[in-house]
């Protein structure tokens, strides 16, 4: 071992002084480490940018501009017969309420003495959303006693006015805009200074249905949230039993043979099939073949169930695998059947893991968009679906599809709405994931 090649002089090195080779190796080491840190920085930066972009454009969707003033609701126009009977009063159309509302606004603004010169009445009424009259009508029909009294009005301002206060609309852009004029913006500014207009928290964004292309200020997520909720219900009722049953069979009872192998490969492949393919399946089977209604939560739920089952199977099997065999052996040893050992002992112990996996699968299903587009969930739906089970067959929207829908509209105010909807979606996901994490922390057992 100590033999040296003849003629070679030993290299004189010192631990204190690094030679060139060591230096370059150390430099390479530092570089490599920097690459790793760089990669992490890029990933985190991307996350930060994504979140910042969504929250900075979307948070304003939760605040909305309202014109607030007092007015008398004239009984002679709103309830000509004077019976305060909602069925009779329903004969007065939204147009009637619009005239009343406009009159009230003009009077309130004129009497405050803040109208700049040269502003016509049509400019004053132009600051209101077309939806405001419908809101007032619903309010009056729900509570007929309001007629003939002086009430506080909270009227939705026009989307462009709202955009002006949120920085989307400027005086310059208003000049080129057919829906708004600079005079109206000045008036709105004056009204705000005078307390006749205010930006407040907008519950309607979460509770109201979608609105048409011209009324971004009235668009809300109510129907979409309900639709998503219904679909999650379907997924929960179908995917969890199927997924858990399949995993129990595969993990605890299945013999090791070719047939079971095929099922296993199949499941891992299904988990990786693009989601849009499930949409095509849903369209072909549930809608064209089974004639289920389009844009119904039941169809969306079925498609999402097929997508979620593999995910649930994979996590449930992991949870079952984590239960040590000694539990099964002990149960069998005192005379339980195999079925009893699984259902009485293994399954309860695996429950936290199964629940966690289920919630994560549901979260994945909640955010899925592509398959829902194909089964017609993009339709414009303004009516709330009924209570389940009948409501499962009513047309509804879904949160992610509503977001997609809004991105396809022309008015830039819908970008704000779409981002706001994403915040709602992310909030739901956050809650679900938090529950999953808490469950895991609380009940996870190490054997």
């Amino acid at each position, binding site marked *: 071992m100590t033999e040296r090649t003849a003629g070679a002089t030993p290299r004189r090195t010192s631990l204190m002084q690094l030679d060139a080779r060591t230096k370059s190796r150390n430099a390479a080491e530092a570089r490599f480490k920097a690459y790793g840190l760089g990669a992490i920085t890029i990933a985190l930066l991307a996350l930060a940018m994504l979140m910042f972009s969504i929250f900075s454009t979307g948070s304003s969707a939760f605040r909305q501009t309202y014109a607030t003033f007092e007015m008398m609701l004239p009984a002679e126009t709103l309830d000509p017969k004077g019976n305060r009977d909602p069925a009779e009063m329903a004969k007065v159309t939204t147009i009637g309420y619009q005239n009343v509302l406009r009159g009230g606004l003009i009077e309130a603004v004129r009497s405050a003495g803040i109208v700049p010169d040269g502003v016509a009445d049509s400019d004053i009424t132009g600051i209101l959303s077309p939806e405001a009259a419908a809101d007032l009508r619903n309010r009056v029909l729900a509570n007929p006693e309001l007629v003939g009294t002086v009430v506080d009005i909270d009227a939705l301002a026009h989307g462009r006015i709202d955009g002006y206060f949120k920085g989307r609309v400027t005086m310059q852009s208003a000049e080129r805009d057919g829906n708004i004029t600079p005079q109206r913006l000045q008036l709105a500014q004056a009204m705000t200074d005078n307390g006749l207009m205010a930006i407040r928290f907008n519950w309607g964004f979460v509770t109201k249905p979608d609105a048409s292309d011209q009324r971004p200020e009235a668009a809300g997520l109510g129907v979409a949230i309900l639709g998503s909720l219904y679909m999650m219900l379907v997924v929960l009722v179908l995917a969890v039993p199927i997924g858990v049953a399949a995993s129990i069979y595969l993990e605890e009872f299945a013999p090791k043979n070719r047939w079971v192998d095929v099922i296993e490969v199949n499941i891992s492949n299904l988990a990786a099939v*693009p989601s849009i393919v499930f949409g095509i399946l849903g369209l072909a089977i549930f809608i064209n073949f089974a004639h289920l209604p389009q844009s119904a939560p039941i169809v969306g739920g079925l498609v999402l169930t097929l997508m979620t089952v593999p995910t649930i199977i994979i996590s449930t099997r992991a949870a079952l695998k984590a239960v040590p065999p000694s539990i099964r052996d002990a149960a069998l040893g005192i005379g339980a059947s195999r079925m009893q050992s699984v259902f009485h002992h293994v399954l309860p112990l695996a429950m936290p893991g199964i629940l966690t996996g289920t919630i994560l699968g549901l979260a994945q299903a909640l955010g899925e968009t592509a398959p829902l587009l194909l089964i017609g969930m993009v339709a414009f739906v303004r009516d709330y679906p009924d209570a389940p089970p009948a409501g499962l067959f009513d047309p509804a929207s879904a949160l992610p599809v509503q977001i997609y829908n809004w991105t396809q509209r022309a008015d830039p105010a819908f970008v704000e709405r779409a981002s706001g909807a994403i915040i709602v979606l992310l909030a739901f996901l956050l809650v679900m994931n938090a529950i999953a994490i808490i469950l895991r922390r609380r009940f996870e057992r190490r054997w």
Partner: protein
Amino acid sequence: MPLFWTFLIVLAIAALAFVLGRRGAVARTAGDSRQLHSLPSYYGWYSFILAAVPALVVMIMWIFVQPIVVEMRTVSALDLPEAVSTADQNAAMRQVRTVAMAVQDALASGAMTKDQLAAFATDPAPMGQALRDAGSSMLVTVTPTLYNAVDVYLGTSNMLAWIMTVVIIGLSLAGVFVAISRCRPDFRARNAVEKVTMSILVMASVIAIFTTVAIVVSMVFETTNFFSQHSWIDFFFGTTWSPAFQGQSQLGLLPLLWGTLYISFIALLVAVPVGLFTAIYLSEYATRRMRSIVKPLIEILAGIPTIVYGLFALITVGPLLRDYFAQPLGLGTSGSSVMTAGLVMGIMLIPFVSSLSDDIINAVPQSMRDASLGLGATPSETIRQVIVPAALPGIVGAILLAASRAIGETMIVVLGAGAAAQIGLNPFEAMTTITVKIVSQLTGDTDFNSPETLVAFALGLTLFVITLGLNIVALYIVRTYREQYE
């Protein structure tokens, strides 16, 4: 909803059966349950199953068969000519269904009485208007034949629904009696219950197979339908994509495939280095504390729905790339481009690549690391020359899985890549992908039998075959690799 009520009634009968079966078995031993073969509740479950399962199975089959029977009878009432095409027949059926639905709604809401409906039999012409007045949005004019058909449709549906209710409840009750008579002390109730449970478990695991079969069958069926109307040479080798609704569409796959592959390539170009280095740093260098902070943060990226990435591409990344790169460089003026979609998709894939590689790197035995470090290699040399080569098959598998994800991704490309089907090299131009075209061909109000719509199924099948191929290869590689170190 009578179906739902029938279901509830069956469940109620079954619950009753549970109590009766359990009690009956115990009573036959004079209260000494030790003489029973099985635990008392198994007798209850056995009765429950006999009361519920056959009834519900019949119910489900009935739901599938009933529309077929109704349709057959309605078609014969429609009096269609002998040589009617399936498309025409379907159109006629659709009319019948719309009117029938409107009639049902009108009857349910009380806007129309049964007598009023019967009065239309002599002169059905004003019926359409009457239904519209009752709040229906259907626009069909009701002819005498149509009225007849609707009558048959509703009559048969109603009759069958009643028969079904009676049959099902009868079956359920019969089940209760059979169960009670069988629940003797020496009856092996547990074995019977377990057999049923087992078959339920097996059926649940076969659903996965059914899903795959359904995917393949439905797509193959519609695809052959498509190829019977459109030349397959144009589809597979055509370089132009221009659907025209007067016919003469050119539906070439190549531009879509090119766009798909180009965008996926850019996405992998972003995701693989970043994801891989992240995984390496986190598993080999990072302190426990850093790992516990960074790893969940990166996993957040994995939990974000793709529609969010799509919006990010649309409102932030697209304009950014356009204003700071494409326009100053004179490369394009479009916010949606291959680059936009590719970059954002790359971000989406980072956690996918990093968590898969993390598992794989951690599977490399510690002894190999120790040996390399013991020979004097620096950590980075160990990683490059020992760990990565050892983990390479797994990493390749992970990249293939990521590629299959990228190819099948829809929302990011729908919102970020544009809709122009073209073959080009400029990454700042809008291109389109297979998934975008599937969405655009299937979401419009188009005739379902035109090649322009059916092409979506051919595209879907192509997508399915490509991703399935990638997945199978990737899973095979990852599996064999894992076994190597176990």
